[in-house]
């Protein structure tokens, strides 16, 4: 824990997990705005530090399996079932923009670590356009 009470995020990183391939599908329920992404990044910043340093980040899910709750279909019909719209990109598209995927908390949750709060622009670009969630609740 940091001196100001923020928890060390590194303690919540799944250390025994290989980094996702560049082609791995990254999903986030939307829609987002730059203002919302900033608010979410600031919430993480308020609660956590990373390696003792301030951190901004935004949550996503990564399709890690072909079947089951950590598959793309499983995420869309499970954790994101209340989202009629989603963003979908690849791990490679995030890293191309200098954004780091960190496997945090419970699989298949990840945190996209932003180098600074201004990087929400790059994040929004990487996430791409809003797509319908074919498995959303009606």
């Amino acid at each position, binding site marked *: 824990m940091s001196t100001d009470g923020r928890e060390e995020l590194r303690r919540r990183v799944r250390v025994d997990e290989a980094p996702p391939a560049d082609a791995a599908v990254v999903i986030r329920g939307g829609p987002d705005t730059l203002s919302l992404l900033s608010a*979410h990044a600031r919430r993480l910043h308020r609660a956590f530090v990373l390696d003792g340093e301030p951190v901004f980040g935004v949550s996503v899910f990564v399709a890690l399996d072909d079947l089951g709750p950590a598959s793309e279909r499983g995420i869309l019909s499970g954790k994101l079932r209340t989202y009629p719209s989603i963003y979908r990109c690849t791990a490679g598209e995030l890293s191309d923009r200098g954004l780091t995927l960190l496997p945090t*908390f419970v699989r298949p949750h990840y945190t996209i670590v932003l180098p600074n709060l201004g990087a929400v622009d790059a994040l929004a670009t990487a996430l791409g356009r809003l797509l319908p969630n074919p498995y959303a*609740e009606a």
Partner: protein
Amino acid sequence: MTRVDIAADLNSEDETGFVWTFLDEAEDPSVIRPGEVVVAGSPLTPAVCEVIDLVDKPVGTIVHLRVLPGTIEQYRRLLARVGV
């Protein structure tokens, strides 16, 4: 646009596997009690959630939320159907 009881990122889970946010992001924090059903998220992405617990931490009180099945519109139709 829907007014939410508490702002949250419903993508954002912690080690409990539940969605988390801060109690002081609630419109009326007195509503946010374990077992209560609330609307959480953002005006663009609202969802009906159950408050699981409140955890006091040095940085603030963390609220854990379970996203419940069904859309707000489905709950609205339910209430209309049963005459509430």
